[in-house]
């Protein structure tokens, strides 16, 4: 029962030939993994988080391994939106796949300015608005932790751009549905989740926290069950497409997220473990659909009964 599997999906106007993107902050600006494969095979690429002004990020150490996961405290090191436009956009704009800029800010105004500036880039596919980064002093996490502030940030970005807006949510909340609803009502065209869970580690030799900022973001396979639950919850609450991520390492993981209702998935930490993970996941989803004689669209939310 061979058939030509249709893997394509359109998320808020972003046309993807397959549902597998790479997660912000785990794929730099797309240069590094080109050594391993043709990154035009991805469904879409999401950049490292951008802020209006350049950011140095946090002092080392910035990463720490945990059981089936890792903590990071990169602190949004990035060249700023101007630096991005000069140094990174030229090569990114030549890719054949949608490129999505992930943006962040210390203030609502920052988000607005960054969004505005990026909107001038011809060919940029969308903005992913990170209201959930746990590794910066101001803003970041706080914005994504209450419906009101989530609303405010997304509204400010909405006013700055006509690009599709993907609101990226923090999992460190009691009611993820309320945050998702607020983001959508402020104008988000899609939701992505989860960002990292807030965690920490202590060095028992020095008896001090490992990270200078004490808390850091947990990602990787360890968080998958939590991410999947939150994707399920958000798909229940909002009508916009959802991009699922958090610990996706195999095609089976990706299929779980799609069955839960995600229209696409993003691969983060798994890139570090297996540089060709996104390709293997695309192939795996394809073979699975082939076996079931279905297309991607049939799979989205199929476990919701």
């Amino acid at each position, binding site marked *: 029962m061979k058939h030509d599997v249709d893997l394509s999906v359109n998320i808020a106007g972003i046309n993807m030939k397959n549902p597998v993107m790479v997660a912000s902050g785990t794929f730099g600006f797309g240069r590094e*993994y080109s050594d391993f494969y043709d990154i035009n095979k991805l469904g879409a690429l999401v950049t*490292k988080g951008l802020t209006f002004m350049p950011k140095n990020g946090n002092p080392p150490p910035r990463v720490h391994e945990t059981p089936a996961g890792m903590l990071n405290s990169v602190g949004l090191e990035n060249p700023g939106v101007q630096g991005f436009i000069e140094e990174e956009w030229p090569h990114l704009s030549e890719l054949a796949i949608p490129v999505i800029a992930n943006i962040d800010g210390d203030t609502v105004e920052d988000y607005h300015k960054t969004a505005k500036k990026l909107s001038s880039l011809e060919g940029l596919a969308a903005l992913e608005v990170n209201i959930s980064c746990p590794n910066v002093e101001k803003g970041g996490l706080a914005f994504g932790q209450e419906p009101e502030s989530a609303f405010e940030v997304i509204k400010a970005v909405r006013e700055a751009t006509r690009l599709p807006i993907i609101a990226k949510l923090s999992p460190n909340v009691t009611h993820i549905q309320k945050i998702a609803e607020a983001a959508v009502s402020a104008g988000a065209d899609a939701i992505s989740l989860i960002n990292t869970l807030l965690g920490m580690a202590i060095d028992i030799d020095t008896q001090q926290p490992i990270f200078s900022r004490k808390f850091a973001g947990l990602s990787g396979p360890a968080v998958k069950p939590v991410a999947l639950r939150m994707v399920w919850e958000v798909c229940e609450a909002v009508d916009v497409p959802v991009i699922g991520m958090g610990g996706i390492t195999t095609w089976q993981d990706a299929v779980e997220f799609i069955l839960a209702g995600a229209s696409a998935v993003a691969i983060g*930490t798994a890139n570090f*473990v297996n540089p060709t993970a996104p390709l293997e996941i695309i192939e795996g989803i394809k073979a699975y659909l082939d076996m079931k004689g279905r297309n991607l669209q049939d799979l989205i939310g199929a476990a919701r009964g």
Partner: protein
Amino acid sequence: MNNTVAALADIVQNKEIAPNIYHMKIKALDIAKKAVPGQFLHIRCGKTLSPLLRRPISIADTDEKTGCVEIIYRVVGEGTRLLSQTLTGHKLDVIGPLGNGFPLPEKDAHCIIVAGGIGTAPIIYLAKKIASEPKNKNSVTTVLGFTTKSEVFGEGYLKFPGVETIIATDDGSYGYKGFPTDILERLLQEHMGKTDPIIYSCGPKPMLIKVKEIAASKNIRAYLSLEEHMACGVGACLGCSVKSSRKGYKKVCKDGPVFEAGEVELC
């Protein structure tokens, strides 16, 4: 562009050469052809999700003819423990060669290579490469420091023409008593005024700090190989930062692991 290779390499040797120190050889022709001293492999030590991340291990030698790439590693935690238990005949999941390498001397120079403990691994490859460079007439002195006699390894790997090796142990149980940096200072004293010296170094941070200090005070070029915890190993995650002497951070995996001493702040 294809500078980095992902390979499932055959393990052809994995043997203990000193207590908890292993010498592994794998077949990875593409890596052997491209590698330069100072670069490293990023190795998946287990097959399950824990430990999750790869482990960076320096290339200790290559052989373009046999396609072999060698590493020497110390068992310190779960990743290296699993690596030490991996059997000959099995496959090793590696990516590499990664990072930059030690810049080789452009003209005749006296190369003093200072290594501490497991920092000896990449130094073997470096010393061999410099000594075998036919165009230049470099002389190479390697100074290896260990805490005590039972920890000493590497001397046998460094027996090439043109390479002199000096061993120091902290407790004097083998070779000179003292730190390798003590010997570095003496060597510099002796060599002053002759061919330009270049210092290369790899080892524990306190040693590198001392090397940097000595080099700076005598205004000698020095290249240091640094370590930092890594996730991606390829420059994508910004996880392996070291403070730049100018502004912001450098990535040990991509901008390094070898830095000119003046480029980075150690501490």
